[in-house]
């Protein structure tokens, strides 16, 4: 029986007095790739923020490896191995590429281990190696996304959450990004990928959830999703 990696029970949260997520429940099994899709403005990013601790949980519980994490501040969740790879803008704009990557390994104090991981990341993203001394403000969108993923890899966390890895990128770059994500399974086996549309996810995800207006309204395997194209048209207008 596969162990549970992440369990969400009746998660409710929002901003100020505005409720965005209503009673979400889901389970991510260890070693699986779970995709969450849904239209813009229906709580995808809110879910990511609630999981990583950037906004607080109003009601419900979140468990990582059967320990409750919903009361922990963001940095302690990272210590527990829940790594978020944020959307493009959450980088440190006035630092070099290498400094950004080193901050990804902030929790590692062993210098040799740190440089070993740095080499590994540079091995995956040769582009970042070329630009290691460049200020990240000057990077292109695709390079920033690579940096963001590479920075997440530095920590070699237990589970990774990718927030819209294809957002705002050219199709060719998206292909590259997804190749890398497929390769991620070797490093961090459990992935939660958030996307607006399912086309790319279908190839890598084991289970896909559909998030609409703060609620999961459907879940199933990618092949089941294909059968329900009618529903996709309704929700996503594809």
């Amino acid at each position: 029986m596969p162990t549970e990696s992440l369990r969400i029970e009746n998660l409710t949260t929002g901003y100020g007095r505005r409720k965005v997520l209503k009673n979400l429940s889901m389970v991510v099994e260890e070693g699986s790739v779970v995709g969450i899709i849904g239209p813009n403005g229906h709580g995808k990013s809110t879910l990511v923020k609630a999981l990583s601790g950037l906004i607080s949980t109003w009601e419900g519980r979140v468990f990582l490896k059967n320990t409750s994490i919903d009361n922990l501040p963001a940095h302690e969740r990272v210590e527990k191995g829940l790594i978020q790879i944020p959307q493009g803008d959450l980088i440190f704009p006035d630092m070099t590429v290498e400094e950004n990557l080193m901050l990804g390994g902030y929790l590692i104090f062993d210098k040799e281990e740190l440089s070993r991981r740095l080499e590994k990341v540079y091995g995956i993203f040769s582009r970042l190696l070329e630009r290691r001394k460049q200020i990240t403000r000057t990077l292109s969108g695709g390079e920033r996304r690579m940096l963001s993923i590479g920075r997440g890899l530095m920590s070699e966390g237990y589970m990774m959450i990718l927030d819209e890895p294809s957002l705002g990128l050219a199709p060719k770059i998206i292909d590259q990004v997804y190749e890398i994500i497929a390769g991620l399974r070797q490093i961090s086996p459990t992935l939660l990928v958030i996307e607006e549309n399912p086309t790319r996810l279908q190839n890598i995800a084991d289970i896909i959830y559909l998030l609409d207006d703060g609620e999961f309204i459907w879940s199933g395997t990618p092949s089941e999703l294909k059968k329900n194209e009618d529903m996709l048209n309704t929700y996503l207008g594809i």
Partner: protein
Amino acid sequence: MSISQISILIAVLGILVAIIAFFWGTSHSTKEFIKIDNRTSNVWKDFWIGMILLALALIFPAFGAGKYLLSQIVLFFIWAAVVTQWNLIFGIAGIFTLGHMAVFAVGGYITSMIALYMGWNLWAALPVGALAAVVFSFLLGATIIRLRGPYIAIMTLAIAIVIQKLIVSDVDCFVTKDLICYNFTGGAKGLFGYGNFGFKELLGYKGKIYGEYYLSLTLLVLSTLFALFVIYSPLGSTFRSIRDNEIAAGSRGVNRIKYQLIVFTVSGIFTGLAGGVFAGLQTTMGPNVLSLSLLLFLLSMIVVGGRGTNWGPLIGAASLMLADTILRDFGQLRVAGLSLIILFAMIFLPNGLIGLLSNIFNWSPNKKENEDRVSIKNFIKSDRSKYLKRGKWIKKFGNENE
């Protein structure tokens, strides 16, 4: 009249204001966009609050309050008038000035200088002082209005400090009378001997305090009326829209700086008048009106009462005057006490006493937090609802397939 009696009286007054204000609640909470329809009813609420307070204030001296208490209330009226205007700039228009006392000082100094050097009657000098304050306010506003919030706070504070330093260090003789040298600005000693409002001649020695009382009350009433007028005018709703979302308001062509400058300038009228009245009642005008402790005192009135609320400054002024009466007994520690009050209010009462009251009275065990948003959303995409049901059906169906 003993201090405890005074404290009790002021406390009663403050509580009255607070209770009445509750009926009206916080006007500028997050629920603003719902309340906007109730604007006319808010006006009436404010009208009745004002009327009750005014009636209380008008008949108060008839209860035979002592001279000391009345003079404290006179001071309260003046400070309340000043902080009402300050709140208009600070809380409503969002200009974080710490140089408001400089405008007050300009009003007071010009009034007393005109009376002193040109021999005018103080009553005639009052409007001139107010006008000077307006001009100064405009210049001050034009200088700092384009800066960012924290910059404005520091720059206005620096300007106030420099004005105080210039006055204190003024040692050149402007007039020499009987071998005594008088400086143009009065220097560290301050200006004196420019006469008074003539209440003593008009009402006699005993009646003088009543004249002062009603004069300062008039000032406060006018100042409050003006503040409410601005809040309910299109200008007020412009500022609310800017506060809700500056970028959105800006893209609809709302010129924040222009409106801010208008409010900043016009609020100089009553601030300057308050300065003039203060100078006339105190019969001396010194640089201590620009001192850090007075700044802190008035600032804490706004912060404790509730920034950006209609009656917050009044409640704040009442409670701070009360606190000050108590703190006065501790002499040296007065300033420390004031600082602790302001820190306490900033940490525990971010919306001031008004915010606290409305939290208490609006509290209910199971409030529906989401009603307004849902209703708007339903309205926007009412045609979606059938798909939502269908989606649930599909979910069921999908589960069956597994």
